[in-house]
């Protein structure tokens, strides 16, 4: 049964990333860092539920195998299908966004995953951005994670166009080419304050937005 579930998860993962390729022909631009299998934390802008699927798809296979998205438990556990996709297919680190309801600290969950050898995909805005602004203000999770595990590269990734492929509330995606730009890695300075670091991380991500 376990083998069957693992197999079904593999096949579903392949089907989802094939579909993502068909719709978006994703193009990865490695501008500030090379696609080598080092353990990293990728942080990206969040405009669509497809964001982490696309980032996951754009990673070369050896990197993809070791990379886990950090996703909202309150979204991914609402139906058995979502739970299967979130847990088994993408092996997501599911965190609870509601402080009053959660039993585990999200930063601890993320550092545990890093300590187990995984890379992470996180969306520091904490929710999908459907405003006109390029980015919503970052939550503090990225800073606390960087403080807790200062040795890891924090890689900014700008995902372009996916909000046009699948605007919030639409059901059928429009095929358009999406570009993912991977920037130079960041580390938190020993004396750096939370606000200064989050501002620097925001700027690093925004700097990748310019079309190339």
């Amino acid at each position, binding site marked *: 049964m376990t083998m069957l579930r693992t197999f079904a998860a593999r096949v579903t993962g392949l089907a989802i990333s094939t579909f993502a390729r068909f719709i978006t*022909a994703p193009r990865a631009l490695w501008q500030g860092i090379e696609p080598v299998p080092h353990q990293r934390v990728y942080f990206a802008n969040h405009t669509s539920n497809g964001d982490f699927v696309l980032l996951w798809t754009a990673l070369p296979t050896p990197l993809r195998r070791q990379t886990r998205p950090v996703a909202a438990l309150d979204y991914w556990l609402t139906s058995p299908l979502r739970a299967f996709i979130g847990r088994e297919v993408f092996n997501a680190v599911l965190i609870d966004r509601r402080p009053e309801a959660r039993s585990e600290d999200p930063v601890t969950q993320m550092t545990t995953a890093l300590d187990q050898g995984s890379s992470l995909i996180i969306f520091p805005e904490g929710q999908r951005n459907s405003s006109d602004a390029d980015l919503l203000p970052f939550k503090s999770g990225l800073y606390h994670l960087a403080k807790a595990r200062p040795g890891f590269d924090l890689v900014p990734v700008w995902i372009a166009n996916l909000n*046009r492929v699948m*605007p919030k509330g*639409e059901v*059928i995606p*429009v*095929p*358009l*080419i999406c570009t993912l730009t991977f920037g130079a890695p960041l580390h938190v300075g020993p004396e750096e304050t939370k606000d200064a670091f989050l501002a620097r991380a925001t700027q690093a991500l925004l700097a990748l937005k310019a*079309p190339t």
Partner: protein
Amino acid sequence: MTSPHLLWLLAGVGTILVLASVIGEILRARLSPAGDNPVIENLNARINAWWVMVICLALAFIAGKPGVVLLFALCSFAALREFLTLTTHNRADHWSLVACFFLILPLQYWFLATDWYGMYSIFIPVYAFLLLPVVSALRGSTKDFLIRVSETQWALMICIYCASHVPALLYLQIPGFEGRNVILIAYLIFVVQLSDVLQYVWGKLIGRTKVAPNLSPSKTWEGLIGGTLSATAIGTALYWMTPFTPLEAAGMCLLITLMGFFGGLVMSAIKRDRGIKDWGHLIAGHGGFLDRLDSVIFAAPIFFHVTRWVWSTT
């Protein structure tokens, strides 16, 4: 679908590619042993991509009409995806864009596959042209409305309508040429692409005077004249596999190589305006599908209609 003439043409193209691959490897060994000369590396990437494109085309020819129609439907899909990535649209256009990909594209190729000439020759210029803006208008956003609907219509005309005239050649009925229409497609693509390659080669060898300096630094008068004339000469020499006499073949070749050149020029102007170098990234060394197909897309409808007007009974 296969005929001895098609096999000859494919064998000829295969020989050219073998030669090109050998020359590419020799140049790499001499000039770019560490893979650090971008021109040589690009040349080799282009040659490798040509192998893939020729093999796909040959497989489609072997699979017959459905194969060729399906191949060009897929090319239209990829081209449309590249084109609409760069056009102006907003959330109000979501359903009209979905319709472009999942309704208009399959319908156009379905009309083609069922040989409904009266429909596929006007479906996009009339029905899609009139009805698609209605979908956008009903969503109520008027910002840039004319720009949005015009650019979408342009994308449909280029990527679906014009491109579908390549497989449409299969449905012409030319007395004495029955069962060999696939040759018309192979001939059109061969002459137009050969002209592109030869324009590139002549331009690299003796190109001095730019045709349109604001548009493209690589298009020169020397390349244009040398490329179109030498491709026309080679195309004329192959008249025996077409329904044309040598003089007619020369005229047709000149027509399609010039249209191909115009296609490259117009599509470059669009790329320049949008500040990009290539339409896409899926064909290594060449860029996107539109970068490779622009000349064929411009030549195909003219080639189709002239052939139909003069030689076909339908």
